[in-house]
Protein backbone atom coordinates (compact mmCIF):
# COMPACT_ATOMS: atom_id res chain seq x y z
CA UNK A 1 0.00 0.00 0.00
CA UNK A 2 1.42 3.35 -0.94
CA UNK A 3 -0.10 6.48 0.48
CA UNK A 4 -0.75 9.39 -1.83
CA UNK A 5 1.75 12.21 -2.07
CA UNK A 6 0.02 15.31 -0.78
CA UNK A 7 2.91 17.75 -0.83
CA UNK A 8 5.97 17.18 -2.94
CA UNK A 9 8.89 19.58 -2.95
CA UNK A 10 11.86 19.06 -5.24
CA UNK A 11 15.14 21.02 -5.17
CA UNK A 12 13.49 24.14 -3.81
CA UNK A 13 15.54 27.32 -3.47
CA UNK A 14 14.04 30.48 -2.01
CA UNK A 15 15.71 33.80 -1.31
CA UNK A 16 14.17 36.87 0.26
CA UNK A 17 15.54 40.33 -0.52
CA UNK A 18 18.58 38.68 -2.12
CA UNK A 19 19.53 36.45 0.82
CA UNK A 20 19.16 32.70 0.44
CA UNK A 21 16.65 31.45 3.00
CA UNK A 22 15.93 27.93 1.78
CA UNK A 23 18.43 25.78 -0.11
CA UNK A 24 17.82 22.57 -1.97
CA UNK A 25 14.77 21.50 0.00
CA UNK A 26 13.38 18.08 -0.83
CA UNK A 27 10.33 16.95 1.04
CA UNK A 28 7.47 14.60 0.39
CA UNK A 29 4.50 14.59 2.71
CA UNK A 30 2.10 11.68 2.36
CA UNK A 31 -1.58 11.61 3.01
CA UNK A 32 -2.25 11.23 6.72
CA UNK A 33 1.21 12.38 7.79
CA UNK A 34 1.46 14.58 10.84
CA UNK A 35 4.76 16.33 10.21
CA UNK A 36 6.39 18.47 12.86
CA UNK A 37 9.00 21.00 11.72
CA UNK A 38 11.47 22.37 14.22
CA UNK A 39 14.39 24.71 13.71
CA UNK A 40 15.99 27.90 15.03
CA UNK A 41 14.58 31.40 14.60
CA UNK A 42 15.24 32.54 11.08
CA UNK A 43 15.68 28.94 9.93
CA UNK A 44 13.12 29.41 7.17
CA UNK A 45 10.14 27.52 8.62
CA UNK A 46 7.59 30.24 7.91
CA UNK A 47 9.12 30.81 4.49
CA UNK A 48 8.73 27.12 3.66
CA UNK A 49 5.04 27.19 4.59
CA UNK A 50 4.54 30.41 2.66
CA UNK A 51 6.17 28.85 -0.41
CA UNK A 52 3.82 25.91 -0.22
CA UNK A 53 0.91 28.38 -0.13
CA UNK A 54 2.21 30.33 -3.12
CA UNK A 55 2.72 33.47 -1.04
CA UNK A 56 6.46 33.39 -1.77
CA UNK A 57 7.82 32.72 -5.23
CA UNK A 58 10.68 30.22 -5.30
CA UNK A 59 13.91 30.99 -7.21
CA UNK A 60 14.18 27.41 -8.37
CA UNK A 61 12.57 24.06 -7.81
CA UNK A 62 9.14 22.53 -7.87
CA UNK A 63 6.28 22.29 -5.44
CA UNK A 64 3.22 20.24 -6.15
CA UNK A 65 0.12 19.87 -4.03
CA UNK A 66 -2.11 16.83 -4.41
CA UNK A 67 -0.51 16.19 -7.78
CA UNK A 68 -1.22 19.69 -9.14
CA UNK A 69 0.53 23.03 -9.18
CA UNK A 70 0.53 25.43 -6.24
CA UNK A 71 -1.54 27.95 -8.21
CA UNK A 72 -4.20 25.37 -8.87
CA UNK A 73 -4.35 23.49 -5.60
CA UNK A 74 -3.26 25.87 -2.84
CA UNK A 75 -6.90 26.33 -1.89
CA UNK A 76 -6.94 22.75 -0.58
CA UNK A 77 -4.82 24.03 2.30
CA UNK A 78 -5.94 25.50 5.60
CA UNK A 79 -3.38 27.93 7.02
CA UNK A 80 -2.78 29.39 10.44
CA UNK A 81 -0.17 32.13 10.13
CA UNK A 82 2.47 32.81 12.77
CA UNK A 83 1.47 36.42 13.08
CA UNK A 84 -1.84 37.78 11.99
CA UNK A 85 -1.57 41.50 11.82
CA UNK A 86 -4.86 43.20 11.65
CA UNK A 87 -6.42 46.36 12.72
CA UNK A 88 -8.03 46.23 16.19
CA UNK A 89 -10.61 48.80 15.19
CA UNK A 90 -11.80 46.80 12.18
CA UNK A 91 -15.58 46.48 12.59
CA UNK A 92 -16.01 42.73 12.25
CA UNK A 93 -17.23 39.97 14.54
CA UNK A 94 -15.52 36.68 15.36
CA UNK A 95 -18.16 34.66 13.50
CA UNK A 96 -17.73 36.73 10.35
CA UNK A 97 -13.96 36.26 10.44
CA UNK A 98 -14.48 32.49 10.57
CA UNK A 99 -17.10 32.59 7.82
CA UNK A 100 -14.60 34.36 5.59
CA UNK A 101 -12.72 31.08 5.39
CA UNK A 102 -15.57 29.79 3.23
CA UNK A 103 -15.91 32.83 1.00
CA UNK A 104 -13.99 31.44 -1.95
CA UNK A 105 -16.18 28.33 -2.05
CA UNK A 106 -19.41 30.24 -1.65
CA UNK A 107 -21.87 30.22 -4.53
CA UNK A 108 -23.80 33.41 -4.97
CA UNK A 109 -24.03 36.40 -2.74
CA UNK A 110 -24.85 34.83 0.59
CA UNK A 111 -23.49 32.20 2.90
CA UNK A 112 -25.53 29.00 2.96
CA UNK A 113 -26.91 27.26 5.97
CA UNK A 114 -24.13 24.73 5.65
CA UNK A 115 -21.57 27.56 5.83
CA UNK A 116 -23.11 28.75 9.09
CA UNK A 117 -23.25 25.26 10.56
CA UNK A 118 -19.64 24.66 9.68
CA UNK A 119 -18.68 28.01 11.26
CA UNK A 120 -20.47 27.06 14.49
CA UNK A 121 -18.84 23.64 14.52
CA UNK A 122 -15.34 25.08 14.07
CA UNK A 123 -15.89 27.69 16.78
CA UNK A 124 -16.88 24.85 19.10
CA UNK A 125 -13.77 22.88 18.20
CA UNK A 126 -11.59 25.76 19.42
CA UNK A 127 -13.94 26.51 22.34
CA UNK A 128 -14.79 29.99 21.15
CA UNK A 129 -18.52 29.61 20.51
CA UNK A 130 -19.39 31.94 23.38
CA UNK A 131 -17.41 34.81 21.92
CA UNK A 132 -18.83 34.45 18.42
CA UNK A 133 -20.45 37.88 18.45
CA UNK A 134 -17.48 39.79 19.87
CA UNK A 135 -15.64 42.23 17.63
CA UNK A 136 -12.32 40.60 16.73
CA UNK A 137 -10.39 43.58 18.11
CA UNK A 138 -11.72 42.91 21.62
CA UNK A 139 -10.10 39.48 21.87
CA UNK A 140 -6.86 38.61 23.63
CA UNK A 141 -3.92 37.32 21.60
CA UNK A 142 -4.60 33.69 22.47
CA UNK A 143 -8.31 33.98 21.75
CA UNK A 144 -7.51 35.50 18.41
CA UNK A 145 -5.18 32.64 17.59
CA UNK A 146 -7.98 30.18 18.30
CA UNK A 147 -10.25 32.07 15.93
CA UNK A 148 -7.58 31.79 13.25
CA UNK A 149 -7.46 28.04 13.77
CA UNK A 150 -11.24 27.91 13.32
CA UNK A 151 -10.96 30.04 10.19
CA UNK A 152 -8.38 27.62 8.77
CA UNK A 153 -10.56 24.59 9.47
CA UNK A 154 -13.85 25.98 8.26
CA UNK A 155 -13.32 25.29 4.56
CA UNK A 156 -12.68 21.53 5.04
CA UNK A 157 -9.06 21.59 3.89
CA UNK A 158 -7.24 18.34 3.13
CA UNK A 159 -3.95 19.82 4.34
CA UNK A 160 -3.42 21.95 7.41
CA UNK A 161 -0.33 24.17 7.73
CA UNK A 162 0.15 25.58 11.21
CA UNK A 163 2.88 28.09 11.99
CA UNK A 164 3.44 28.08 15.74
CA UNK A 165 -0.27 28.02 16.48
CA UNK A 166 0.21 27.58 20.23
CA UNK A 167 2.73 30.38 20.74
CA UNK A 168 0.34 32.51 22.78
CA UNK A 169 -2.38 30.18 24.00
CA UNK A 170 -2.63 28.95 27.60
CA UNK A 171 -1.63 25.45 28.68
CA UNK A 172 -5.23 24.29 29.00
CA UNK A 173 -5.96 25.11 25.39
CA UNK A 174 -2.58 23.79 24.28
CA UNK A 175 -3.53 20.34 25.57
CA UNK A 176 -6.99 20.57 24.00
CA UNK A 177 -5.48 21.82 20.80
CA UNK A 178 -2.94 19.02 20.41
CA UNK A 179 -5.67 16.48 21.07
CA UNK A 180 -7.76 18.18 18.40
CA UNK A 181 -4.85 17.96 15.98
CA UNK A 182 -4.37 14.29 16.79
CA UNK A 183 -8.04 13.67 15.95
CA UNK A 184 -7.87 15.78 12.79
CA UNK A 185 -4.76 13.99 11.63
CA UNK A 186 -6.85 10.86 11.07
CA UNK A 187 -8.58 12.60 8.17
CA UNK A 188 -6.12 15.36 7.23
CA UNK A 189 -2.49 15.85 6.48
CA UNK A 190 -0.96 18.23 9.00
CA UNK A 191 2.29 20.19 8.97
CA UNK A 192 3.04 21.84 12.29
CA UNK A 193 5.85 24.32 12.91
CA UNK A 194 6.66 24.63 16.57
CA UNK A 195 9.45 25.35 19.03
CA UNK A 196 7.79 23.10 21.56
CA UNK A 197 9.90 19.99 20.97
CA UNK A 198 8.26 18.05 23.78
CA UNK A 199 4.77 18.57 22.41
CA UNK A 200 5.92 17.90 18.88
CA UNK A 201 7.61 14.67 19.78
CA UNK A 202 4.55 13.48 21.68
CA UNK A 203 1.95 14.09 18.99
CA UNK A 204 3.48 14.13 15.52
CA UNK A 205 4.17 11.12 13.35
CA UNK A 206 7.30 12.43 11.64
CA UNK A 207 9.80 15.17 12.42
CA UNK A 208 11.89 17.43 10.20
CA UNK A 209 14.48 19.97 11.19
CA UNK A 210 14.95 23.09 9.11
CA UNK A 211 17.87 25.46 9.21
CA UNK A 212 18.11 26.76 5.65
CA UNK A 213 18.50 23.14 4.57
CA UNK A 214 16.15 20.39 5.64
CA UNK A 215 16.90 17.23 7.55
CA UNK A 216 14.13 14.73 7.10
CA UNK A 217 14.00 10.95 6.99
CA UNK A 218 10.24 10.43 7.06
CA UNK A 219 10.26 8.98 10.54
CA UNK A 220 9.83 10.16 14.05
CA UNK A 221 13.46 9.89 14.98
CA UNK A 222 15.02 13.07 16.14
CA UNK A 223 18.68 12.33 15.84
CA UNK A 224 21.59 14.10 17.45
CA UNK A 225 22.72 15.01 13.94
CA UNK A 226 19.43 16.67 13.19
CA UNK A 227 19.48 18.74 16.33
CA UNK A 228 23.11 19.69 15.92
CA UNK A 229 22.47 20.61 12.31
CA UNK A 230 19.37 22.52 13.18
CA UNK A 231 20.45 24.48 16.18
CA UNK A 232 24.23 24.62 15.85
CA UNK A 233 24.65 23.82 19.48
CA UNK A 234 25.42 20.81 21.66
CA UNK A 235 22.56 18.40 22.07
CA UNK A 236 22.42 18.61 25.86
CA UNK A 237 21.05 22.13 25.73
CA UNK A 238 18.11 21.07 23.62
CA UNK A 239 17.58 17.49 24.68
CA UNK A 240 16.45 18.27 28.20
CA UNK A 241 12.85 17.23 28.54
CA UNK A 242 12.56 15.30 25.31
CA UNK A 243 11.19 11.79 25.76
CA UNK A 244 13.95 9.32 25.06
CA UNK A 245 11.89 7.32 22.67
CA UNK A 246 12.14 10.01 20.06
CA UNK A 247 15.69 11.19 20.53
CA UNK A 248 18.16 8.82 18.94
CA UNK A 249 21.82 8.99 18.13
CA UNK A 250 22.99 7.36 14.90
CA UNK A 251 23.36 4.08 16.70
CA UNK A 252 21.39 4.25 19.88
CA UNK A 253 19.42 6.20 22.38
CA UNK A 254 20.98 9.30 23.83
CA UNK A 255 20.99 9.90 27.53
Amino acid at each position, binding site marked *: MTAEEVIRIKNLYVSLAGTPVLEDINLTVYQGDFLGIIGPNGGGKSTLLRSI*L*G*LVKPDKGEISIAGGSVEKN*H*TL*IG*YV*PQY*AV*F*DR*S*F*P*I*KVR*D*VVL*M*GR*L*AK*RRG*RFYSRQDYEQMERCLELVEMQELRNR*PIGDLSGGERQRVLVA*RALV*ADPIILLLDEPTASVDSHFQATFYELLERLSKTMTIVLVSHDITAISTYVSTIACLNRTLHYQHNKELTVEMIEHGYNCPVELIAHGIPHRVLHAHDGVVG
Partner: protein
Amino acid sequence: MEFLQYEFIRNALMVGFLVSIACGVVGTYVVIKRIAFISGSISHTAYGGIGLGYYLGINPMVGATFFTLFSALAMGEVSHRMKDREDTVIGIMWAIGMALGVIFVKLSPGYTADLMSYLFGSILTVPHNELILVLILDIIILLTVGLFHDQFTMVAFDEEFAQVIGISTRFYNGLLLCLIALTVVVMIRAVGIILVIALLTIPPSIAGQYTRSMGSMMGLSILLGAVFTTGGLYLSYLFDLPSGATIILLAGTGFLLSLLLKNITGKIAQEKRWDM
Protein backbone atom coordinates in the same frame (compact mmCIF):
# COMPACT_ATOMS: atom_id res chain seq x y z
CA MET B 1 -38.96 77.52 4.28
CA GLU B 2 -38.13 79.96 1.53
CA PHE B 3 -34.81 78.14 1.16
CA LEU B 4 -36.60 75.23 -0.49
CA GLN B 5 -38.68 77.17 -2.98
CA TYR B 6 -35.89 77.50 -5.56
CA GLU B 7 -35.44 74.69 -8.01
CA PHE B 8 -31.64 75.01 -8.01
CA ILE B 9 -31.64 74.47 -4.25
CA ARG B 10 -33.82 71.39 -4.49
CA ASN B 11 -31.47 70.17 -7.21
CA ALA B 12 -28.48 70.84 -4.98
CA LEU B 13 -30.04 68.96 -2.08
CA MET B 14 -30.64 66.03 -4.42
CA VAL B 15 -26.99 66.05 -5.47
CA GLY B 16 -25.95 66.31 -1.83
CA PHE B 17 -28.02 63.26 -1.00
CA LEU B 18 -26.62 61.21 -3.88
CA VAL B 19 -23.12 62.24 -2.89
CA SER B 20 -23.74 61.18 0.72
CA ILE B 21 -24.74 57.69 -0.39
CA ALA B 22 -21.66 57.17 -2.52
CA CYS B 23 -19.21 58.56 -0.02
CA GLY B 24 -20.81 56.88 2.99
CA VAL B 25 -20.50 53.46 1.40
CA VAL B 26 -17.16 53.80 -0.38
CA GLY B 27 -15.67 56.05 2.32
CA THR B 28 -16.21 53.26 4.85
CA TYR B 29 -13.89 51.00 2.86
CA VAL B 30 -11.39 53.84 2.46
CA VAL B 31 -11.27 54.38 6.22
CA ILE B 32 -11.10 50.74 7.35
CA LYS B 33 -8.59 49.89 4.64
CA ARG B 34 -6.54 53.02 5.41
CA ILE B 35 -6.23 54.09 1.79
CA ALA B 36 -7.04 57.78 2.21
CA PHE B 37 -3.76 58.71 0.53
CA ILE B 38 -4.45 56.72 -2.64
CA SER B 39 -7.98 58.09 -2.67
CA GLY B 40 -6.79 61.68 -2.35
CA SER B 41 -4.37 60.97 -5.12
CA ILE B 42 -7.07 59.56 -7.41
CA SER B 43 -9.23 62.60 -6.77
CA HIS B 44 -6.48 65.02 -7.73
CA THR B 45 -5.73 63.21 -10.98
CA ALA B 46 -9.36 63.97 -11.90
CA TYR B 47 -8.03 67.42 -12.78
CA GLY B 48 -6.19 65.85 -15.70
CA GLY B 49 -9.52 64.47 -16.92
CA ILE B 50 -11.26 67.83 -16.55
CA GLY B 51 -8.48 69.42 -18.61
CA LEU B 52 -8.69 66.66 -21.20
CA GLY B 53 -12.44 67.23 -21.43
CA TYR B 54 -11.92 70.92 -22.18
CA TYR B 55 -9.19 70.14 -24.66
CA LEU B 56 -11.29 67.62 -26.58
CA GLY B 57 -14.38 69.78 -26.34
CA ILE B 58 -16.40 67.15 -24.46
CA ASN B 59 -18.10 67.48 -21.06
CA PRO B 60 -15.26 67.76 -18.50
CA MET B 61 -17.16 65.43 -16.15
CA VAL B 62 -17.06 62.69 -18.77
CA GLY B 63 -13.34 63.34 -19.22
CA ALA B 64 -12.91 63.12 -15.45
CA THR B 65 -14.80 59.82 -15.26
CA PHE B 66 -12.51 58.05 -17.72
CA PHE B 67 -9.33 59.71 -16.52
CA THR B 68 -9.89 58.87 -12.83
CA LEU B 69 -10.84 55.28 -13.70
CA PHE B 70 -7.63 54.99 -15.66
CA SER B 71 -5.48 56.45 -12.89
CA ALA B 72 -7.22 54.27 -10.30
CA LEU B 73 -6.28 51.16 -12.28
CA ALA B 74 -2.73 52.44 -12.74
CA MET B 75 -2.38 53.07 -9.02
CA GLY B 76 -3.78 49.63 -8.27
CA GLU B 77 -1.04 48.09 -10.40
CA VAL B 78 1.61 50.25 -8.74
CA SER B 79 0.56 49.26 -5.25
CA HIS B 80 0.40 45.63 -6.35
CA ARG B 81 3.89 45.61 -7.85
CA MET B 82 5.85 48.11 -5.78
CA LYS B 83 4.80 47.50 -2.21
CA ASP B 84 7.98 49.11 -0.88
CA ARG B 85 7.78 52.41 -2.75
CA GLU B 86 4.01 52.56 -3.06
CA ASP B 87 3.44 55.94 -1.39
CA THR B 88 6.20 57.73 -3.30
CA VAL B 89 5.03 56.51 -6.69
CA ILE B 90 1.43 57.33 -5.92
CA GLY B 91 2.40 60.85 -4.83
CA ILE B 92 4.21 61.27 -8.14
CA MET B 93 1.19 60.10 -10.12
CA TRP B 94 -0.97 62.60 -8.23
CA ALA B 95 1.29 65.45 -9.35
CA ILE B 96 1.52 64.19 -12.93
CA GLY B 97 -2.27 63.98 -13.19
CA MET B 98 -2.67 67.58 -12.07
CA ALA B 99 0.16 68.83 -14.28
CA LEU B 100 -1.48 67.22 -17.31
CA GLY B 101 -4.69 69.01 -16.41
CA VAL B 102 -2.92 72.38 -16.28
CA ILE B 103 -1.33 71.82 -19.69
CA PHE B 104 -4.59 70.62 -21.28
CA VAL B 105 -6.47 73.63 -19.96
CA LYS B 106 -3.80 75.99 -21.29
CA LEU B 107 -3.98 74.34 -24.73
CA SER B 108 -7.77 74.35 -24.81
CA PRO B 109 -9.45 76.65 -27.28
CA GLY B 110 -12.15 78.94 -25.93
CA TYR B 111 -13.74 79.50 -22.63
CA THR B 112 -12.67 77.70 -19.40
CA ALA B 113 -14.25 80.02 -16.87
CA ASP B 114 -15.98 77.43 -14.70
CA LEU B 115 -12.70 75.68 -13.92
CA MET B 116 -12.89 76.90 -10.33
CA SER B 117 -16.19 75.11 -9.86
CA TYR B 118 -14.48 71.76 -10.52
CA LEU B 119 -11.69 72.58 -8.11
CA PHE B 120 -13.83 73.83 -5.23
CA GLY B 121 -17.30 72.62 -6.16
CA SER B 122 -20.48 74.43 -7.06
CA ILE B 123 -23.37 72.32 -5.95
CA LEU B 124 -25.82 75.11 -6.80
CA THR B 125 -25.14 75.04 -10.52
CA VAL B 126 -25.28 71.32 -11.34
CA PRO B 127 -27.00 70.98 -14.71
CA HIS B 128 -29.72 68.40 -15.17
CA ASN B 129 -27.64 66.03 -17.32
CA GLU B 130 -24.94 65.90 -14.64
CA LEU B 131 -27.55 65.08 -12.04
CA ILE B 132 -28.42 62.06 -14.19
CA LEU B 133 -24.72 61.14 -14.48
CA VAL B 134 -24.37 61.28 -10.69
CA LEU B 135 -27.46 59.12 -10.28
CA ILE B 136 -26.16 56.50 -12.71
CA LEU B 137 -22.76 56.39 -11.01
CA ASP B 138 -24.47 56.01 -7.63
CA ILE B 139 -26.42 53.03 -8.92
CA ILE B 140 -23.27 51.40 -10.34
CA ILE B 141 -21.48 51.90 -7.02
CA LEU B 142 -24.34 50.42 -4.97
CA LEU B 143 -24.77 47.43 -7.27
CA THR B 144 -21.06 46.62 -7.21
CA VAL B 145 -20.89 46.90 -3.43
CA GLY B 146 -24.04 44.79 -3.14
CA LEU B 147 -22.40 42.06 -5.19
CA PHE B 148 -18.91 42.10 -3.69
CA HIS B 149 -19.19 43.51 -0.17
CA ASP B 150 -17.90 40.33 1.49
CA GLN B 151 -14.95 40.11 -0.88
CA PHE B 152 -14.03 43.76 -0.33
CA THR B 153 -14.27 43.29 3.42
CA MET B 154 -12.11 40.19 3.37
CA VAL B 155 -9.40 41.76 1.23
CA ALA B 156 -9.43 44.82 3.49
CA PHE B 157 -9.27 42.72 6.64
CA ASP B 158 -6.59 40.18 5.77
CA GLU B 159 -5.16 40.36 2.29
CA GLU B 160 -2.80 37.46 2.75
CA PHE B 161 -5.49 35.07 3.90
CA ALA B 162 -7.74 36.15 1.04
CA GLN B 163 -4.94 35.15 -1.31
CA VAL B 164 -4.48 31.83 0.48
CA ILE B 165 -8.10 30.79 0.04
CA GLY B 166 -8.09 31.89 -3.59
CA ILE B 167 -9.74 35.32 -3.59
CA SER B 168 -8.04 37.51 -6.18
CA THR B 169 -6.77 40.45 -4.14
CA ARG B 170 -5.51 42.16 -7.26
CA PHE B 171 -8.95 42.09 -8.85
CA TYR B 172 -10.87 43.27 -5.80
CA ASN B 173 -8.33 45.94 -4.88
CA GLY B 174 -8.52 47.25 -8.45
CA LEU B 175 -12.31 47.16 -8.44
CA LEU B 176 -12.47 49.04 -5.15
CA LEU B 177 -10.15 51.74 -6.51
CA CYS B 178 -12.47 52.06 -9.53
CA LEU B 179 -15.39 52.58 -7.15
CA ILE B 180 -13.36 55.26 -5.40
CA ALA B 181 -12.73 56.89 -8.77
CA LEU B 182 -16.47 56.94 -9.55
CA THR B 183 -17.23 58.29 -6.08
CA VAL B 184 -14.71 61.07 -6.65
CA VAL B 185 -16.48 62.00 -9.88
CA VAL B 186 -19.82 62.01 -8.07
CA MET B 187 -18.38 64.37 -5.45
CA ILE B 188 -16.54 66.79 -7.72
CA ARG B 189 -19.57 69.00 -8.35
CA ALA B 190 -20.50 69.08 -4.68
CA VAL B 191 -17.24 69.95 -2.98
CA GLY B 192 -14.61 70.03 -5.73
CA ILE B 193 -11.49 68.00 -6.45
CA ILE B 194 -9.41 69.59 -3.72
CA LEU B 195 -11.91 68.94 -0.94
CA VAL B 196 -13.19 65.50 -1.97
CA ILE B 197 -10.96 63.59 0.39
CA ALA B 198 -12.37 65.32 3.48
CA LEU B 199 -15.99 64.48 2.72
CA LEU B 200 -15.00 60.95 1.75
CA THR B 201 -13.27 60.22 5.06
CA ILE B 202 -14.90 62.41 7.72
CA PRO B 203 -18.36 60.75 7.91
CA PRO B 204 -16.97 57.19 8.13
CA SER B 205 -14.32 58.17 10.68
CA ILE B 206 -17.00 59.64 12.92
CA ALA B 207 -19.31 56.69 12.29
CA GLY B 208 -16.53 54.20 13.05
CA GLN B 209 -16.30 55.52 16.61
CA TYR B 210 -19.91 54.67 17.37
CA THR B 211 -20.61 51.52 15.34
CA ARG B 212 -19.33 47.97 15.45
CA SER B 213 -20.33 46.57 12.09
CA MET B 214 -19.65 47.59 8.52
CA GLY B 215 -23.34 47.91 7.70
CA SER B 216 -24.13 50.33 10.51
CA MET B 217 -20.92 52.23 9.82
CA MET B 218 -22.05 52.78 6.23
CA GLY B 219 -25.58 53.72 7.29
CA LEU B 220 -24.43 56.28 9.84
CA SER B 221 -21.89 57.68 7.36
CA ILE B 222 -24.62 58.27 4.78
CA LEU B 223 -26.73 60.02 7.40
CA LEU B 224 -23.83 62.21 8.53
CA GLY B 225 -22.94 63.00 4.92
CA ALA B 226 -26.52 64.12 4.28
CA VAL B 227 -26.46 66.29 7.41
CA PHE B 228 -23.17 67.91 6.40
CA THR B 229 -24.16 68.60 2.78
CA THR B 230 -27.63 69.87 3.64
CA GLY B 231 -26.42 71.89 6.63
CA GLY B 232 -23.45 73.24 4.69
CA LEU B 233 -25.70 74.23 1.84
CA TYR B 234 -28.05 76.04 4.19
CA LEU B 235 -25.24 77.87 5.98
CA SER B 236 -23.67 78.92 2.68
CA TYR B 237 -27.06 80.25 1.55
CA LEU B 238 -27.58 82.06 4.85
CA PHE B 239 -24.17 83.75 4.97
CA ASP B 240 -23.48 83.88 1.25
CA LEU B 241 -20.38 81.64 1.45
CA PRO B 242 -18.93 79.20 -1.11
CA SER B 243 -20.94 75.98 -0.72
CA GLY B 244 -18.16 73.39 -1.09
CA ALA B 245 -15.89 74.92 1.51
CA THR B 246 -18.81 75.46 3.90
CA ILE B 247 -19.80 71.80 3.65
CA ILE B 248 -16.24 70.73 4.40
CA LEU B 249 -15.88 73.11 7.35
CA LEU B 250 -19.15 71.85 8.80
CA ALA B 251 -17.95 68.26 8.39
CA GLY B 252 -14.60 69.17 9.98
CA THR B 253 -16.38 70.77 12.92
CA GLY B 254 -18.49 67.64 13.28
CA PHE B 255 -15.34 65.54 13.32
CA LEU B 256 -13.70 67.63 16.06
CA LEU B 257 -16.88 67.60 18.15
CA SER B 258 -17.15 63.82 17.89
CA LEU B 259 -13.52 63.44 18.99
CA LEU B 260 -14.20 65.71 21.95
CA LEU B 261 -17.36 63.86 22.82
CA LYS B 262 -15.62 60.52 22.60
CA ASN B 263 -12.88 61.80 24.90
CA ILE B 264 -15.32 63.11 27.48
CA THR B 265 -17.55 60.03 27.48
CA GLY B 266 -14.44 57.86 27.58
CA LYS B 267 -13.18 59.72 30.66
CA ILE B 268 -16.55 59.50 32.40
CA ALA B 269 -16.77 55.77 31.73
CA GLN B 270 -13.25 55.35 33.12
CA GLU B 271 -14.02 57.30 36.29
CA LYS B 272 -17.17 55.28 36.84
CA ARG B 273 -15.18 52.10 36.57
CA TRP B 274 -12.72 53.29 39.22
CA ASP B 275 -15.49 54.53 41.51
CA MET B 276 -17.07 51.11 41.79
